[in-house]
């Protein structure tokens, strides 16, 4: 007669291993999803390229996102604004993406852009303050000028905001009521 815990554990080895593999699989799956299938880089109704507009054609951000410096919202350019330029850029007039734009304009329909940076309703962020504080758009939105399709680069979670506020010693930038109200 003898006793050993190890002996008793022996038959549990395989189920434990299977569970381990399963859990590992879960992590892998979640990672794969985040990497390849997430909403970080959604396919937009028009294949708009920031690279062409910003880098190649040297259009400053606020030329189109006109509200950023004076309102909480950066705003996307109106269809008329897009057409304003594209009417006078004959070189690419016939490209399929511009034709899409033209269709929207002719039908007087807005373009249903998919939001890449979306904050929960209880976060009251304001672009104006951040622009006025001298932040470059790229600080939060990443190297937009190099992106053909816009990709979310920041988590936009609270510690991400707070870290920056702490680092820059924003006066009372850590008061909850700065953003939540």
């Amino acid at each position, binding site marked *: *007669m*003898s*006793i050993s*815990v190890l002996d008793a554990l022996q038959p549990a080895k395989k189920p434990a291993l299977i569970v381990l593999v399963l859990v590992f699989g879960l992590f892998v799956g979640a990672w794969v999803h985040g990497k390849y299938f997430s909403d970080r880089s959604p396919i937009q109704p028009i294949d708009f390229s920031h690279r062409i507009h910003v880098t190649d054609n040297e259009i400053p951000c606020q030329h189109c996102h006109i509200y950023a410096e004076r309102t909480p919202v950066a705003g996307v350019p109106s269809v008329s604004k897009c057409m304003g330029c594209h009417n006078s850029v004959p070189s690419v007039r016939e490209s399929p993406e511009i034709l899409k734009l033209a269709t929207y304009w002719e039908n007087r329909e807005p373009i249903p852009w998919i939001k890449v940076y979306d904050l929960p309703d209880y976060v009251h962020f304001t672009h104006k303050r951040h622009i006025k504080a001298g932040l470059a758009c790229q600080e939060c939105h990443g190297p937009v000028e190099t992106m053909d399709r816009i990709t979310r680069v920041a988590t936009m979670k609270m510690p991400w905001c707070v870290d920056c506020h702490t680092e820059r010693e924003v006066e009372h930038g850590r008061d*909850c009521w700065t953003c939540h109200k």
Partner: protein
Amino acid sequence: MAILGSFAFEEDFLDAARKLKSSGFDKLSLLSPLPLEEAQELMGLEKSPVRHFSLAGAIFGAIAGFAMAVATSLVFILPTGGRAIITIPPFLIITYEMTILFGVLFTLLGFHFVSGLPAWRDRPYLISAGIDRFVVIVEGAAADQVARAEAIIRDAGADEVRHVEEDQ
């Protein structure tokens, strides 16, 4: 080679153990279905080192508890109710609870450490030791000593003696 001697009566069992001990068998295990103070004395067990674990745990818990309360309240400076950020009286309560929590956890750790449980390796055992038999186990006896040990056990009045191979 381990020798197991099983006794029906406590006094015989203690007798055998005492004799074995005096005969130089040091690797003795005294199995009983209930705690026996004499057996513990016989094994030279007085104050258990578990108590050091308890103390260490309590001290660690106290420090950790207070430190946690202070440190986390400094992560975000959020004043409440006109109290100071570092408020001693409520933090003492946290300290108190954490003292106990870690005291208990460390004692548990100490138990495992001191008692050598859980026992991973195979050890000789008799089921009856968990019911109504008192069992003496002599381990690590040299081959020539086995017979002597067995004789002592039998003399003391064991109702069963067994030999078990130890795996090294």
